[in-house]
């Protein structure tokens, strides 16, 4: 009698997709998404924006470095008309001011302050932002490249790059996506726990696939080699 063989995830990895992960962000609290370049942090934010906007919620995105790609957001499923995009042109103080204004405007389901490697953000500013959304239904997310000690974030998710996924053997033919690991590194809410795991131990392995969005080409609608 043969023994069924199936690939099993490494210990500590959840396999139920990112739906459970996206539901972790607590309303009325400051959360932090930490990740270096090509770690999947931006993809995680776009997935959350798509989930909220398709449910009818409104999202404000404070883009400190003007790096949001609306094509990627649309490919992820976001309703762009429900997205307020504030481009700050690399000005940290402007971005913090804009986030403060939006956090105090009730009605947004999600306010994202995407700083990437801009910073550092004073802890007092984070506390001020945290206070602004207290007792509201707004999810406030700070996306940074490096976690700063003393942050008042109630939930900190860290994304880590596992490696790209290519299509084709050598020579490679195209980029298929990126595998990354997302881990809860801090939880300060008693009601929040990662599914099936103890607090602070949740890990997710996510495969972010590159959508075939034609970024170019009247003459080449598909990304084919020239």
């Amino acid at each position: 009698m043969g023994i069924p063989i199936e690939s099993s995830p490494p210990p500590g990895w959840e396999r139920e997709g990112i739906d459970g992960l996206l539901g972790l962000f607590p309303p009325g609290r400051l959360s932090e998404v930490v990740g270096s370049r090509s770690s999947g942090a931006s993809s995680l934010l776009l997935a959350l924006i798509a989930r909220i906007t398709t449910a009818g919620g409104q999202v404000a995105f404070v883009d400190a470095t003007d790096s949001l790609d609306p094509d990627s957001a649309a490919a992820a499923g976001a309703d762009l008309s429900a997205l307020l995009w504030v481009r700050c042109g690399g000005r940290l103080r402007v971005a913090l001011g804009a986030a403060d204004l939006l956090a105090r405007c009730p009605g947004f389901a999600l306010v994202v302050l995407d700083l990437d490697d801009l910073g550092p953000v004073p802890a007092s500013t984070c506390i001020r932002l945290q206070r602004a959304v207290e007792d509201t239904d707004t999810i406030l997310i700070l996306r940074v490249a490096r976690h700063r000690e003393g942050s008042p974030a109630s939930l900190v998710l860290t994304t880590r790059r596992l490696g790209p996924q290519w299509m084709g053997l050598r020579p490679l033919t195209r980029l298929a996506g990126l595998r990354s690991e997302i881990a809860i590194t801090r939880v300060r809410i008693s009601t929040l726990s990662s599914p099936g795991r103890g607090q602070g131990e949740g890990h997710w392995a996510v495969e972010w696939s590159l959508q075939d969005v034609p970024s170019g080409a009247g003459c080449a609608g598909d990304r084919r080699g020239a």
Partner: protein
Amino acid sequence: MSRIGCLLPEAPSLPPPGALLQVALAHSPRVEEASTCVYLDAAGLEGLFGDEPTLAERLRAAALAEGFSIRVGVAGSRLAALVAARLGAGVAIVEPDGDAAALAPAPLSLLPISEELATRLERWGLRTMGELAALPTTGLFERAGAEGVRAQRLARGDDPRPLSAWRPGPVFEESVECEWGLEALGPLMERLGAMAERLCARLAARGLAADGFEWTCRLADGRAHEGALTPAVPLTESGAVTALLRLALEGRPPRGIVRAIVLRVRPTRAAAAQESFTDPSRPSPRFLEATMNRLVALVGPDRVGAPTLLDSHRPDAVGLGAYAPLSLRRGTSAPPRRGSTSPHRGEGRVRGPVLALRRFRPPAPAAVTVASGRPVALRSSRLGGRIVAGVGPWRVSGEWWTPHPWLQDEWDVELADGTLCRLAHDGSAWLLAGVYD
């Protein structure tokens, strides 16, 4: 017996807004304003202006004196008066009880009926109101319902609806005299806040909202400081109005001592909207308006809005449209934005995890070492290193039919530190377009 006069503007000298109404009001106390004409109650005016032809000529003369010409029709119903004015030569008087005969040759297109009924009557071969009036009412009701019967009554000159008399709208204006004068913005805002509160209370009592504000500050030296603002959405809350007035006056304060203030409001009918308990919350217009104004002041007017995908294949072809969350309601779709996304770049459909690109705006110049036709090393102000894997080139081009065609070759590469980025070569230089994240 009712007698209705119809004042129909005659091309090409169309009247300015409100002028036709003023001509009618100068001759009759009961006037109804329609979309293309004005009706007046012509009954009982003989003692003032003489018989109906004299009244009609007097109306035409009054309009000519105002600088435009009109046609006048007088009949027993509105429709007959309109048809008489439209088909007659300047002045047309329909004798009492002669409406049906006057309407009989008129085309059905003059009847105020739905598109569906008009199509049905046309399929039946009906062309004139007389043909519709001659149909048996019972059979018409069985086939066209109540609307068909109503149309037939109109075609027979039987209009049961009385004139909907025009009434002047209330004036929403508050004024304050300041005996000692106001020098600082704080006391001025206190006065304006109190005036806004009274005006909003009057608006709310009539089910109206403020669609625009105008203020005039009379200064001690006799000059006047005037200003106006139009909120993005009609407002009824005095707090929001006061906040907007404060922002406007902070940006352009009066240059002198203020002796008197006049605040006028342009009213509009407040749209009634029933929110659903199951709908997600959205920003209150009151807060959003003030927040958007502050954001624009903070980051600039061209840096805030809803992203829109332009109808182009050029990389990073995006724009910023107006952010209007009020138009988003479950079950209804927002009107498509001009130059918005094409279907293949569709949005709003939840998909699996999608890899995002973080763009560099503008793309960063890069120095790329190429070996055997493939990039092997990257150096730029943003990032750099040895390229360990890469795919490409993907040639993209477009707008070759315009004076400004574009073309570039794109590469997806992995650096030695694991960073995934997109490179582009536009034929003369390498650019770092963005980083996959």
